[in-house]
């Protein structure tokens, strides 16, 4: 029974992780077409990806978008999480559910709605629209993770600070923030990954010239048959792995997922 269980587990892990090995191998191919097993091994396509202007541009945009929208989302989300966790706000549950709606509404609808009823009528630039959409998407993660770490901080610790002479703001920065730092870092990482990998929300908001990396990859799949996308996919997987490992070492990210 036990051996059967372990055999199933091994098969499941292979099913989950195997494709990454396949794509890494395909990306390391020395040949010019996407095949498996690869026709010889080389770093040719890995280096080639770094030289491709379109991917470089969309990578940079995705990076800034992920950093910027996550930072913005934390700017909105941290005070909201704090206010809703500590103060007797009337309609608190209602406000919370409003902040969480972006999780329930599929991203493609958010993107389309923003395009049709905000970007076009207001004439917003594409990058602004992307920032708005990604920030909305990350706000719920910021609120949820920060709320969870606030629950671990007793309120009387803040009261003690005030009695010792701190202002409310001073208390927040001197006592609350240092104690929820790990939560904020975890929220930042989750937000970053969510935004960086995001496709449906961005689908309608990107266009030729200004596009995010995952959208760019999707579009390229239609006409690119060489191993460059495989190489890029392998690199992205590697990047995520590094982020997860660092985060797990630093803060035990798995507690927040």
């Amino acid at each position, binding site marked *: 029974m036990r051996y059967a269980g372990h055999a199933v587990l091994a098969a499941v892990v292979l099913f989950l992780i195997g494709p990454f090995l396949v794509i890494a191998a395909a990306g390391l191919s020395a040949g010019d077409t996407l095949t498996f097993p690869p026709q010889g091994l080389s770093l040719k396509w890995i280096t080639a990806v770094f030289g491709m202007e379109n991917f470089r541009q969309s990578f940079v945009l995705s990076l800034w978008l992920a950093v910027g929208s996550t930072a913005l989302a934390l700017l909105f989300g941290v005070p909201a999480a704090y206010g809703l966790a500590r103060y007797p706000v009337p309609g608190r549950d209602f406000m919370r559910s409003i902040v969480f709606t972006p999780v329930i509404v599929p991203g493609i609808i958010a993107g389309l709605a923003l395009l049709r009823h905000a970007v076009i009528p207001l004439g917003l630039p594409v990058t602004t629209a992307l920032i708005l959409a990604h920030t909305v998407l990350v706000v719920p993660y910021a609120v949820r993770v920060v709320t969870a770490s606030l629950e671990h*901080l*007793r309120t*009387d*610790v803040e*009261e*003690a*600070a*005030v*009695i*010792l*002479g*701190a*202002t409310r703001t*001073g208390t927040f920065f*001197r*006592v609350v923030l*240092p*104690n929820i730092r790990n939560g904020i870092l975890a929220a930042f990482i989750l937000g970053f990954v969510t935004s960086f990998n995001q496709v449906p929300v961005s689908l309608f908001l990107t266009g030729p010239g200004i596009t995010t990396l995952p959208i760019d990859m999707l579009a390229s799949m239609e006409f690119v048959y060489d191993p460059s996308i495989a190489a890029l996919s392998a690199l992205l997987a590697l990047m995520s792995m590094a982020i997860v490992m660092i985060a797990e070492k630093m803060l035990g990210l798995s507690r927040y997922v």
Partner: protein
Amino acid sequence: MSDRNFLTIEKLTLAYGGTVAVKDLDLTIAEGELVALLGPSGCGKTTTMRAIAGLIQPRQGRIVLAGRDITHVRANKREVGLVFQSYALFPHLSVFENVAFGLRLRSVARDELEQRANEAIGLVGLKGFERRLPRELSGGQQQRVALARSVVVRPRLLLLDEPLSNLDARLRLEMRSELQRLQRDLGVTMIYVTHDQSEALALADRVIVMRDGRIAQQGTPADIYERPSSVFVAQFVGFENIFKAGQWPLPDERDIAALAWRPQAVVLGQGPHQGRVLGASYLGDAVEYLIETPGGLVKAQTPASARRFALDETVSLDLPLASAARLAGQ
């Protein structure tokens, strides 16, 4: 020299939403006094402390500290210290930084800050623990840090909310005498909240007994222990035999609703009343009897060396008026 009305509380009413926790509380405390606020759980002790510290706003009433009306002064400007029942240490700061927290906010110069923080740490006997984090300390040590953190900023008034209730019995006794020493050395005015009558009686210059958000009685420990004024206070300080008019012959004095005796005050083996022994428990240095009398059940305690009575034995007993507490009301 010392101010008789150092802290004056007038008609203080405190509420959470619709529920009133403290009602029309009047209280005066002299400078340098150590007052114990005694009462069962839920009677409003913490609520009162939080109002004095400025953590909750009163519905009604006034709080005057050293001649200054602080009713609407913010908590961070009150110069009132509060030691929390849970200690509430800053989890991310070392012992030294916890103690120095208030000094840093007051922009105390570095040399003075180090000197004062170290002095406070020494005062509570934590030298050598400066770099530890709160989670690396025992409950008693955390308690000391909380104390040092509060006194180092020299508050005009120090409030302690059941500071010893999370410690084990032995540590409690030890900390109790340290607190007394600390108060004597610093001369700080102190309100000490507790639900433990022996703690209140042992520590305080004056005891204030609270019940349901009001003051039931106040006086010296001896006043409270020997002359409770109501059934409630009498029960709280260990009177077991409480008899109302009609149940027991009461003297014809004004304002007496009941009489109360401690078990030790009951005389067995002689006296005008008769009773039957229902139970006897050996307590080591004493024996406690439960006796059925026409007026009701009586609990009596005699020294272990005194004559013993058997179960079902009929004994004569006396409840001397001289050792009775005269209770005016419930």
